[in-house]
């Protein structure tokens, strides 16, 4: 099980050495990521191994997550190689891939957390770009600060909860779990901790932004669910409703706030970034319900949102590059614009895409929890729908006879492939939802240990 992680880690070192020869570094990166996917899929689910006393386990969710997240990384590496040469991206993608696999397979909460912080720090180098002309340095610094603030506080709270005797007053556990929740909210850019993500959305290169929102944010959410399951804190959370209330409040604020902010913008990157934040809010509500359908829906939402965000941000980058100083428009890149629009279907959870079951489960369980909560999530989805429609109208405002099909339409092709994958997943939802349901079983068992 360590082989794919070692392969990606070693690949990152080699890609760093050859990074300036993009014609070699690009295919090498894609090849390493493909090989890692093949290795992960070839192992039987449930395979375990041990390294220095740390156990790694390839669960069904880890296999699914690896397939989707490394698949997104391949689409990013392909785009950077063919359409948007940025040589620092290749080692970053491989190192991030190794860290993502470590997060998905490790079983010790502190080790998962450590690997997650590593994964979130790796792209700092690819965030800065032409620092004299924009605020990408400030965006990268703010991301660095948020990750380490949330990371160290969360890791410390986790270490304290693991070392304190169990006869602590309830207030101690409430405080520790609240710190862990806020630490994750900082890393997930949940509202009101989203200011660094807003700056990133405007200032950093589209490929690096897609790496963050399409791969690392979903990984962070899965790590959160895994850490809750493995840390032994869930029974305490059930007994003390304050933590559940905190999660619900953060989730609802992000769902509504993200949708509201998305509707207020027609800038493609912002629309995507705030749609991701709104969907993460819905997923947080799903986790906060501490129910099987809520957990299945939450994980399904974040995985599909990651794929949709990758698709939309790559398309937005392609349109912006070709539009230059002009307003982004389908005139210069109609295929990329089409990829952006169909990516919006994944963001709103429209049937028959595989995005639908996740949204359906979470909204259903939210209604059974309270009518107001359910209505808030439906309102959030409506907000995302309006934002995506506004963005689509803004880029397709020119008549088709003025369109010029772009040369090297990588973003368009990648977007279409991702859309087809989500469509096929929607036709066969069992293959997508079964691994998530297996994780939800583990979560529920950890909630009420015998």
């Amino acid at each position: 099980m360590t082989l794919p992680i070692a392969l990606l880690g070693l690949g990152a070192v080699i890609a760093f050495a050859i990074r300036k020869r993009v014609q070699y570094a690009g295919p090498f990166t894609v090849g390493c990521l493909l090989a890692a996917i093949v290795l992960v899929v070839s192992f039987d689910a449930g395979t375990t191994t041990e390294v220095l006393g740390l156990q790694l386990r390839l669960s069904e969710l880890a296999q699914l997550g690896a397939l989707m997240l490394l698949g997104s990384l391949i689409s990013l590496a392909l785009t950077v190689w063919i359409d948007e040469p940025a040589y620092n991206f290749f080692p970053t993608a491989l190192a991030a891939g190794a860290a993502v696999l470590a997060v998905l397979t490790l079983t010790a909460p502190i080790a998962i957390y450590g690997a997650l912080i590593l994964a979130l720090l790796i792209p700092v180098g690819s965030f800065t770009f032409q620092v004299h002309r924009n605020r990408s340095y400030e965006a990268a610094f703010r991301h660095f600060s948020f990750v380490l603030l949330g990371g160290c506080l969360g890791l410390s709270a986790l270490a304290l909860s693991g070392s304190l005797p169990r006869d602590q007053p309830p207030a101690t556990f409430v405080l520790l779990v609240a710190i862990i929740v806020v630490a994750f909210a900082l890393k997930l850019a949940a509202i009101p901790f989203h200011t660094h993500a807003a700056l990133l959305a405007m200032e950093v290169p589209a490929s690096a932004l897609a790496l963050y929102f399409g791969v690392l944010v979903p990984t962070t959410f899965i790590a959160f669910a895994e850490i809750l399951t493995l840390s032994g804190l869930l029974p305490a959370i059930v007994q003390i409703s304050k933590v559940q209330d905190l999660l619900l409040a953060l989730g609802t604020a992000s769902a509504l706030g993200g949708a509201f902010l998305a509707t207020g913008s027609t800038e493609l990157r912002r629309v995507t970034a705030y749609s991701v934040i709104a969907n993460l809010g819905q997923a947080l509500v799903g986790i906060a319900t501490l129910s099987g359908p809520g957990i299945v829906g939450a994980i399904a939402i974040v995985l599909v949102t990651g794929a949709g965000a990758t698709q939309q941000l790559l398309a937005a980058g392609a349109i912006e590059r070709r539009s230059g100083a002009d307003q982004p428009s389908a005139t210069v890149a109609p295929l990329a614009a089409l990829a952006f629009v169909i990516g919006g279907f994944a963001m709103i959870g429209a049937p028959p895409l595989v995005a639908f079951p996740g949204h359906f489960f979470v909204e259903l369980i939210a209604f059974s929890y309270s009518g107001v909560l359910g209505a808030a999530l439906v309102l959030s989805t409506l907000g995302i729908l309006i934002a995506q429609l506004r963005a689509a109208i803004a880029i397709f405002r020119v008549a088709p006879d003025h369109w010029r099909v772009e040369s090297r339409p990588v973003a368009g092709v990648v977007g279409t492939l991702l859309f087809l994958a989500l469509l096929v997943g929607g036709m066969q939802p069992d293959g997508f939802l079964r691994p998530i349901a297996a994780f939800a079983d583990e979560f529920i068992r950890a909630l009420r240990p015998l």
Partner: protein
Amino acid sequence: MLMLGLVAVATLAANGAQHLRYMALAFLGVAIAAHLMAGPDISVWQAALSLAAALVTTAILFIAARDGRFGEDPGWRLWVATIVAATTTAAAFAFLRTASGEDVHVSVLGADPSGVTQQAAAFWLLSSGVAILLTARGAVRGSLGALLMLTGTQLLVQLVPGPQFALALMLAWLQVVVALAGAFLIVNERALREA
């Protein structure tokens, strides 16, 4: 107890330093004192690993500075960070220290098997790091705050039962990556300042 004092003094020195290279050396002092505090409770290999990571971190910051004058004047932030750190440490220690009924005896020079001084040092480093990071204007003090927080986190992780060497290895790598990312940001900040 002596090591706790050394951690506090070295943290204040790092916090008050105007030049990145002095800051890096003071951080090395913090890291050495913090890891010596664990004493015989951690293996020689684990201690060697943590000290090697601290040395590499210091070297990275030292090189990123490029000359002895580059840095960030803390100004009033020094006092805010110190007051906030002292207050938060006391509050965190009151709420989160081990709540067992046993008596704790701490000597000035001897080892502390109860881990109380280690927890106090961890809370101090975390509080100082948070205060420095939140008041930082740029990557110089931002990196220092992050590294202090990480050192405090390492102290707390040492108290958790489990595969200690593997966790120490992971945190050592994390420390080096934080230093590298911080150095990268420092170089960019310098390029912006000099433009």
